[in-house]
């Protein structure tokens, strides 16, 4: 399914802004875009009616109330007009961006409620039948179980329980002496199969 971009923010109109304010405004918008980008798949899943956001920076209203970002939503047209009073543009862009998010998020919710996706998708996991994990992991060497920074050391034995035992004891002593005492690596788990012995080695940083 090729959904159009669910959310488009037009560049703020720099008319009437000083260069410094225009730059701060643009940084704030970039931050808002970045944050909303994290919600892209949620927005696309909630509505397939795109929303275009325009930002203008009018003069501060002549009133005693603190200046605030205001939003005018035309949900049928898919237009959201944000008005950022000019004095707010003097705030740090990360603060201004938070203020813009405060009004944009409720507007997106209203828009999605008015224009819900006809077949709203669910999370992938909830649409799939649950599959039980494989009964028992395959015996033997399983490199996938190795953590980053670990290595697997493998040796062969003669195939008899006594042979495996004696080889394991000899090698345990050898690894202890050559790797653990000098602080190169430590053994972290051992496994014996019909023909092999293996050790998980945690590699130690020698720096």
């Amino acid at each position, binding site marked *: 399914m090729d959904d159009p971009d669910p959310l488009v923010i037009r560049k703020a109109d720099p008319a009437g802004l000083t260069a410094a304010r225009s730059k701060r405004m643009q*940084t704030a918008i*970039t*931050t808002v875009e*970045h*944050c909303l980008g*994290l*919600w892209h*798949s*949620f*927005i*696309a*899943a*909630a*509505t397939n009616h795109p929303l275009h956001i325009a930002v203008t920076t009018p003069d501060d209203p002549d009133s005693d109330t603190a200046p605030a970002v205001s939003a005018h939503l035309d949900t049928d047209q898919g237009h959201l007009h944000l008005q950022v009073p000019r004095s707010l543009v003097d705030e740090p*862009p*990360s*603060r201004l*961006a*938070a*203020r813009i*998010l*405060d009004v944009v*998020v409720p507007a997106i*919710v209203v828009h*999605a*409620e008015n224009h*819900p*996706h006809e077949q*709203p*998708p*669910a*999370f*992938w*996991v*909830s649409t799939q039948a649950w599959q039980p994990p494989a009964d028992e992991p*395959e015996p*033997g*060497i*399983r*490199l*996938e179980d*190795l953590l*980053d920074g*670990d*290595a*697997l*050391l*493998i*040796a*062969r034995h003669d195939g008899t329980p006594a042979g495996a035992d004696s080889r394991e004891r000899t090698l345990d002593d*050898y690894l202890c002496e050559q*790797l653990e005492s000098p602080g*190169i*690596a430590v053994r972290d788990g051992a496994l014996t199969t019909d*023909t*092999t012995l293996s050790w998980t*080695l945690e*590699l130690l*940083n*020698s720096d």
Partner: protein
Amino acid sequence: MTFWLDPYTRFKSLTGVDPVLYERMRSVSTEVAERVTRCFAGSAWLRRRFPARSYVNMRLLPGSDATVGVELLKTKGGGGPNGPKAIRCDLRIPASWLAEPGDGLLGLRLFQAMLHALHAIGEHYVIGMPAAVGPGADRGDPEVWDPFDPPPPPLSYADINAHLERLAASLSPNHLLLAVKEPTSAAVVRQCREVSEALGTVVDQHTLSAPNAKATAWTIQTPS
């Protein structure tokens, strides 16, 4: 990205909500909290009043109310006056949200509800709202997961394991095999060389490949 927001969803029995719907809220709120965490500089915000590593513990409680409600609870935290605190709040959300199909709208509504709760915390503790985080501040955080898409197939090591078994079966009694997953960091490569040199002499190197996984192994000849 620092942890600062914990959506606490372990109160299934308390809410009396259908367990299936509660599970849905749990999985969606996890993804929502992950994104809220990235959207806001929450640690710096909490530092205006609380010790380092403090976090918001948000208990999501679906109920019969039609609107979102926030109730702040006593903060909790051990470790003395400078230990991290849990700033606790109950976030009541309409259970009717959970009955509507589609996880997109539910996620956006939970986002809005969490913003509401952050405001309530900011007002109560006089710390305002956290600043939004721009694109420059990611510091190499992994990309967010798209929960609407299938996850990438798990790496398959079956071929590599079989190859290692064959190599192991052909080892001489004085040989050892050292194996690591690729890609390896420079540090791991260096550490493997140290291990090999401590155990003996490398006499062979093997590159093992599977359709979407890779590994390297070295045959080491030991002195005895």
